[in-house]
């Protein structure tokens, strides 16, 4: 299984701070595994993606396997 962590308002949309999904997952597979509204929200180009705490330069290059943790990071809040 893969743990998907939702930060900020994505956690509200997901209804939970984390989800467990079947491995493996690429970016298209992740979006397809989420409810439609949530899949669209995570596709916002301002969102960043990290795998096991390392930020991806290009989220389309996402490749996650069993035991990995994917974090979906919306823009951080300002002051």
């Amino acid at each position, binding site marked *: 299984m893969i743990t998907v*962590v939702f*930060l*900020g*308002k994505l*956690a*509200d949309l997901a209804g939970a701070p984390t989800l467990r999904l079947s491995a493996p997952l690429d970016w298209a597979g992740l979006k397809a595994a989420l409810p439609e509204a949530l899949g669209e929200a995570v596709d916002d180009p301002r969102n960043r993606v*990290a795998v*096991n*705490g390392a*930020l991806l330069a290009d989220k389309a290059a996402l490749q996650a396997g069993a035991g990995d*943790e994917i*974090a979906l*990071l*919306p*823009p*951080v*809040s*300002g*002051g």
Partner: protein
Amino acid sequence: MMRDIRLLDRMFIPGTLIGPFTQANPGLGGVCTFVGEVRFDAAEQGGVEALELTHYEPLTLPGMHELADRAFERFDLMGLLMVHRVGMMRPGEPIVCVSAAALHRRDAIDAVDFCMDHLKSAAWFWKREKRAGEWHWIEPRQQDHEDLARWQ
């Protein structure tokens, strides 16, 4: 070199950190401290009842350490204290405390300004505030990007 970088999930009293930090930098020429608190905001603006800060453990504290590294590279510092709250806070509670010790004032003042601009707009924190019983996520602001651009 005194370096104290922390995330706290409990209320803290900045004075209890600043005193020991200053003592730990003997021979300093100046110490500059900024403390940020949760704003009340006027009732006509909806009045803030609570602020909740979430973070992502694998990124947030390592990001604060990288910021501290850059501050030490950029300014001539003797010590740096950077403490940030996470979790649920009430108006009036301290949310952030940055203190820099240096031989000369300019390094201390600028290092605190630099760290605060980056903590506000580039650190991995997500904030939501409760107004009139409802939670609202706080979006990035243009002003934050302008504040960051000062250092580029």
